[in-house]
């Protein structure tokens, strides 16, 4: 019987099966940030188990609230910083080198096809874009990951999502994943792995695949996963060129984890995007999704461009293209947070930062910032934000605030209009929805 990507990764990493349904897997990477890791560190210290399984496989960053905004966030940073120092964790990213975890770690080449990765963060699923099994976990699992380099999972049921067609001009990976979540619902993939496949995925860049996998959790999935291919190898080549003779050799090694043609799936869904139009959420659930045209004119108070979903260089390029030579509405607060220092530098070099500033945007340092409503653009009661982030839960960006999720192009167009608006990069064709 053939196997899915997740099944192949599980078999290659299994260290124990305490029950038929429970797989204890060896971990290739444990990622840490300052919100969820300090509790795990403190608990390990209290148990007299202040150890790490392998400092080279642990990567840590202060990204959610940085620079610290108050005593509590300063204390969180301090615990992580001191822990990284005392255990010799070299890949620790602090002020000046830090950025949003799920953008920074891929950029550093920390994720490879076939890897098992955990983090105390629900959007860890992003790293599945590389053909890895990457899952968000709770604190006890994180503790065990840090201490022993293992984690227990249930046997992975896989939902195969075949994405057909090609992206129409002005439509982006964000619109694709919003349309998928709108279709299958917030529980559509609960406790499953979503294996994203098909011509549309093959055509996507790694950045686009990360956007796709990033929101798998919003459909309840443990992980999103894309089969490793030439694009994956091309992205990773600078980091792996000493390990392989040629990109072909790397590809041959990584396609060990490609799904077998006769793999068995829990469910298969075919999703055609050739007629897709830009999408936006309404309400407080990420599966409340509509075409932008149906929401156009909804007034907004703030626009936020950033996060692990859409704070990468291509996202900023697209937004800047829309903003070029324009001014944002005087009643709108525009905030852009490039996701990592390298993205920031690249955006500076390309004049993108200048375009944002000329349009009236505030440019912040790389951080999660407003995405989780803790700093850098928290909403007041009753305020509305057009955001390129991934969660529109009630109160996510501030108590009483409303968040509409959309692509960077739609967010930029909305900033100019002062209300949700269709991006000029999208050319409506008859019959599109």
């Amino acid at each position, binding site marked *: 019987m053939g196997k899915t990507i997740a099944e192949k990764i599980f078999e290659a990493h299994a260290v*124990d099966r305490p*029950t038929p349904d429970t797989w204890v897997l060896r971990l290739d990477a444990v990622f840490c940030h300052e919100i969820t890791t300090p*509790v795990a560190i403190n608990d390990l210290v209290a148990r007299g188990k202040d150890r790490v399984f392998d400092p080279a496989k642990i990567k840590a960053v202060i990204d959610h609230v940085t620079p610290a905004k108050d005593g509590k966030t300063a204390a*969180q940073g301090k615990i992580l910083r001191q822990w990284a120092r005392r255990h010799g964790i070299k890949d620790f990213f602090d002020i000046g080198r830090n950025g949003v975890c799920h953008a920074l770690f891929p950029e550093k080449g920390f994720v490879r096809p076939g890897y098992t990765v955990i983090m105390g963060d629900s959007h860890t699923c992003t790293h599945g874009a590389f053909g890895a099994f990457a899952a968000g976990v*709770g604190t006890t*699992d994180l503790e065990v990951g840090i201490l*022993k380099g293992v984690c227990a999972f249930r046997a992975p049921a896989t939902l195969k999502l075949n994405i057909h067609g090609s992206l129409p001009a002005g439509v982006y990976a964000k619109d694709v994943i919003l349309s998928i979540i709108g279709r299958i619902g917030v529980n559509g993939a609960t406790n499953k792995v979503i294996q994203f496949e098909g011509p549309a995925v093959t055509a996507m860049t790694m950045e686009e695949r990360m956007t796709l996998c990033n929101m798998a959790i919003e459909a309840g999935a443990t992980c999103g996963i894309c089969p490793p291919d030439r694009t994956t190898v091309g992205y990773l080549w600078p980091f792996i060129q000493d390990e392989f003779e040629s990109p072909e050799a790397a590809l041959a090694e990584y396609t060990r984890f490609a799904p077998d043609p006769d793999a068995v799936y829990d469910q298969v869904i075919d999703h055609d995007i050739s007629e897709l139009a830009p999408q936006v959420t309404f309400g407080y659930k990420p599966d409340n999704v509509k075409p932008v045209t149906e929401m156009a004119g909804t007034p907004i108070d703030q626009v936020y461009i950033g996060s692990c979903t859409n704070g990468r260089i291509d996202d900023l390029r697209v937004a800047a293209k829309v903003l070029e030579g324009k001014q944002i509405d005087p009643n709108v607060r525009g905030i852009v947070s490039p996701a990592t220092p390298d993205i920031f530098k690249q955006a500076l070099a390309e004049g993108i930062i200048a375009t944002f500033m000329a349009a009236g945007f505030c440019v912040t340092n790389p951080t999660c910032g407003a995405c989780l409503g803790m700093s850098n653009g928290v909403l007041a009661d009753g305020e509305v934000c057009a955001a390129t982030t991934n969660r529109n839960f009630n109160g996510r960006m501030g108590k009483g605030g409303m968040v509409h999720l959309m692509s960077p192009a739609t967010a930029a167009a909305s900033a100019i209009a002062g209300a949700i608006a269709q991006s000029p990069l999208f050319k409506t064709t008859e019959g599109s929805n």
Partner: protein
Amino acid sequence: MKDFNGEVLFLDRSDINTDEIIPARYLTEISKEALAPHLLEDLSLEEFDAATDIAGKRAVVSRANFGCGSSREHAPWALEVNGITVVIAAGFARIFRQNMFNCGMLAIELPEAEIDRLFSRFAGKPTHLETDFDAGRLTFHSEGDSETIPFTVSDFDRALVQAGGWVEYADARY
């Protein structure tokens, strides 16, 4: 292994969720102990007062779908730092249940009829729980009354409880 013997707190409602067990506003705390004063703070239930009814309790008896809502482990922790190591209910949210065993605590599911009987016989009276973990028996005592009920847990969950939780189990084994 933790201590599973002591006084019982009856919470007569289904679907008690993780926000009622520990409100989200305390998630920024960086130690388990800091959660202690806030257990069940937002639960509004007739004849329940968090300020007076939690102290000294070891076990909770409740109804269906206990621990639904978020997957946060703060819910079992908030129980643990208050000395509550056993929850007996007519059903649990899956993640909450696993989190309990991961913390070396007991989440015991009993048939609805048994739960009904426990409420009618013991709720409102000072009740003591005696747990024979190896034999799989729970014995409830109140003045002049007692009842023994068998329970089962899977071998893996049993091993987690014996080890004192997933951290200890994994550290000893892998």
